């Protein structure tokens, strides 16, 4: 049964392992995946602990619909207190790890303490072992998986692993599976590294019973057609997320030279169609018919002949847009390096671009860079810095500490040049012209983030009736909505709606590309209600699912407040308000965000959530959601 998967508590200090069923009541309140992880995180992590210390808890989960007939039902969620921000640590990755973990009988892992020596977990058909990891400690992401498969004698074992960046506690190290499925943000790789936990290997052959098999099959057929018939899915299926670069750079919505420019000009060599020339096929995650992941072989240089997957929109930003480079090889190699080191491509690119601006301003000198010419446009320097950050060498050691700590170490007002929120760097998009996207990154619960609440469809200038249809369900809304992405009207509701949408889909373990993220006709609450019923038998209306999302998002907010978050953390750096965009299409040129209007958007955003003017959930909101008492440790 999809609802009978267990939760395991693993204490790496004592070696004690305990498994328990997950009560139906919990499922109805939090569903699973990210939502339930947030609840567990709030309960099991004491406030104020050191995120790299043994008191932090790593949570690993599969969403409730993973492995069932729910289009791309493949996603793993990892959580804990973030070593990068000190707030909610939360990250999501695709691939095949989560379904395998469910077939092995488990939905949630709660990993506490710290192992004395490097270990990895081996989970198979209801059993969990802690195994000696000395064979794989020190190996990169790809090699680790091959060695563990060899050791366990089964090529079908799926493995979640950290790279050497996680071992070295690079604060934005990621967790990965296969070649490039990455749980990148908030430094969950460092969390596992701090526990001496190198990897989690899973292999399962246990049934997940589908509640209504014929209906589930028929409905999955229908929902897949709904997804693949959308133009955006078809484009993604051929070009991957690189197509987004084409769309956004053309307008002037990307960050270049660390915010100095908002478009990468004369960059034909790295347009999606050009990068596509290196592509040798597409692949994807479990159950997915969009298959948005490119396959390529590095064509030349020291890594020639290496097979790799990607690149993605974020890699183009990190290795071309932000450092003002235009060489496809830099993107292809940069992507490979962060994949093997196990580092967040986004954070890596942003940190390097920031360092480049500091070098330009004379705040960093060639003495600080050990002679490396860290000017914008220097492809070799970009690649060299990736190595230095992963290996914590010289300036890399400082950058590996993440934006705020690095700025503190460097001093000299370097913090003024940081593009971050709550201590996490922003995606390479430039939000000065796009108010809803700006509001999303300012308020996202894990810091600057394009995946907590980005209303990407706001970029499509959809007519008001279309917007009205999307945003008036499952909860009614009759406030203003605007088709212009530069307006301030209606955007708080859009951001709120998408927050709930992504929270829900992260609880279910379905891919965001199968939601109203990039496409207006793609599934959301209505469809998930049916998917839940056919696959698990659970009867939840679209409104019930929305309420679960609200409940879980409030717990994230409570966790952050407990760790010291205040209203002033829901804001953007001064550059968004003081420096106008220089280039791009006319409607995007010479734009800044307006402080007064932005403040009003935040006020309205808080109102929609049922939070007070400081962004603290009101008692009646918590009561309505049933989380007004200190969680009773039901789990």
């Amino acid at each position, binding site marked *: 049964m*999809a609802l009978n998967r267990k939760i395991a508590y693993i204490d790496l200090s004592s070696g004690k392992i305990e498994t328990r069923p997950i009560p139906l009541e919990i499922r109805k309140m939090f569903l699973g995946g990210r939502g339930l992880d947030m609840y567990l995180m709030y309960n099991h992590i004491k406030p104020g602990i050191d995120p790299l210390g043994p008191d932090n808890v790593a949570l690993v989960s599969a969403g409730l619909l993973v*492995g*069932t*007939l729910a289009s791309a039902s493949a996603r793993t969620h990892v959580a804990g207190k973030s070593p990068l921000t000190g707030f909610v640590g939360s990250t999501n990755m695709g691939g*095949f790890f989560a*379904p395998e973990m469910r*077939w092995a009988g488990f939905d949630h892992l709660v990993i506490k303490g710290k192992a004395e020596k490097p270990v990895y977990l081996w989970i198979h058909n209801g059993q969990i072992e802690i195994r000696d990891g000395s064979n794989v400690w020190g190996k990169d992401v*790809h090699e680790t*998986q*091959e060695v563990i498969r060899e050791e366990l004698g089964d090529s079908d074992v799926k493995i979640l692993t950290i790279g050497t960046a996680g071992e070295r506690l690079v604060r934005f190290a990621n967790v990965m599976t*296969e*070649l490039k499925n990455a749980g990148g943000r908030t430094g969950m790789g460092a969390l596992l590294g701090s526990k001496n936990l190198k990897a989690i290997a899973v292999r399962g*052959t*246990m*049934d*997940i*019973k*589908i509640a209504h*098999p014929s209906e*589930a*099959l028929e409905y*999955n*057929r229908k929902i*897949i057609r709904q997804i*693949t018939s959308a133009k955006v899915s078809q484009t993604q299926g051929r070009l991957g997320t690189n197509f987004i670069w084409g769309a956004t750079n053309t307008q002037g919505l990307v960050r270049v030279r660390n915010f100095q420019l908002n478009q990468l000009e004369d960059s034909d060599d790295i347009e999606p169609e050009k990068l596509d020339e290196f592509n*040798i*096929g*597409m*692949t*994807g*995650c*479990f*159950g*997915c*018919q969009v*298959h948005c992941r490119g*396959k390529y072989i590095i064509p030349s240089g020291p890594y020639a002949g290496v*097979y790799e*997957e990607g690149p993605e929109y974020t890699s183009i930003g990190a290795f071309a847009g932000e450092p003002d480079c235009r060489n496809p090889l830099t993107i292809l190699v940069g992507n490979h390096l962060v994949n093997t080191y196990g580092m967040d491509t986004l954070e890596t690119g942003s940190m390097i671009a920031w360092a480049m601006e500091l070098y330009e301003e004379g705040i960093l000198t060639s003495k600080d860079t050990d002679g490396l010419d860290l000017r914008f446009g220097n492809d070799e320097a970009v690649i060299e810095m990736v190595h230095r950050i992963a290996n914590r060498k010289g300036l890399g050691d400082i950058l590996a500490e993440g934006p705020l700590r690095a700025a503190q170490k460097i001093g000299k007002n370097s913090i003024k040049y940081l593009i971050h929120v709550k201590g996490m760097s922003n995606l390479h998009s430039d939000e000065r012209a796009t108010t809803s996207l700006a509001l999303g990154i300012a308020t996202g619960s894990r810091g600057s983030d394009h995946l907590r609440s980005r209303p990407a469809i706001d970029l499509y200038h959809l007519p008001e009736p279309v917007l009205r249809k999307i945003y008036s369900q499952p909860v009614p809304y009759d406030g203003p909505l605007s088709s212009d992405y530069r307006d301030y009207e209606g955007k708080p509701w859009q951001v709120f709606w998408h927050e709930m949408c992504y929270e829900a889909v992260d609880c279910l373990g379905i891919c965001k590309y199968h939601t109203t993220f990039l496409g207006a006709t793609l599934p959301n609450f209505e469809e998930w209600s049916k998917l839940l019923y056919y696959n698990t038998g659970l009867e939840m209306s679209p409104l019930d699912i929305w309420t679960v999302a609200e409940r879980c998002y409030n717990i994230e907010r409570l966790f952050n407040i407990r760790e010291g978050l205040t209203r002033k953390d829901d804001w953007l750096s001064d550059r968004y308000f003081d420096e106008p965009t220089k280039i791009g299409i006319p409607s995007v040129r010479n734009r800044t965000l307006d402080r007064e209007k932005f403040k009003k958007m935040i006020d309205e955003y808080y109102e929609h959530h049922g939070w007070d003017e400081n962004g603290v959930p009101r008692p009646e909101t918590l009561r309505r959601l049933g989380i007004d008492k200190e969680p009773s440790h039901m789990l």
Partner: protein
Amino acid sequence: MQKMLVVDYEKCTGCRLCELVCAVKHEGVSNPLRARIRIVKWEMKGIMVPMICNHCESAPCIAVCPTNARTRDEEQRKVNVDYDKCIGCRMCIVACPFGAISFDPYASKIISCDLCDGDPRCADFCETGALRYVEASESNKQRQREAAEKLYESIRKFTATYTG
């Protein structure tokens, strides 16, 4: 004309939806172990090969079966199993050169593809065209055409330079 299941491994993206729908259709569960199709992968090289029963015209599994439980259904051009006759000796598993027959430990029986009785779910769900259920005359047409196109291009370039 009867249809047959045609596999184009170059189009497979390795999503394994076929394994999922097969197991759900036959056994009502999500469990690749109980699927009659398997995507064999070399993940680190990005190679995925769908492996399924080829419903051989002269099937070794039929030849080796001691109770004649395995027979050929000429109407649907497939290999059938009569579970009333099958004794579960698993000789067919040994005999199949493709490893297409397996043993389901939960149902305690040997399993192999039965083409879902004429409407294979795997092909229905596979949007990339890696699995297609097509007329026998179509089985090689797409590949033939793709190869011919490449030849056409070469010929065109050659004659263009030749005729100056």
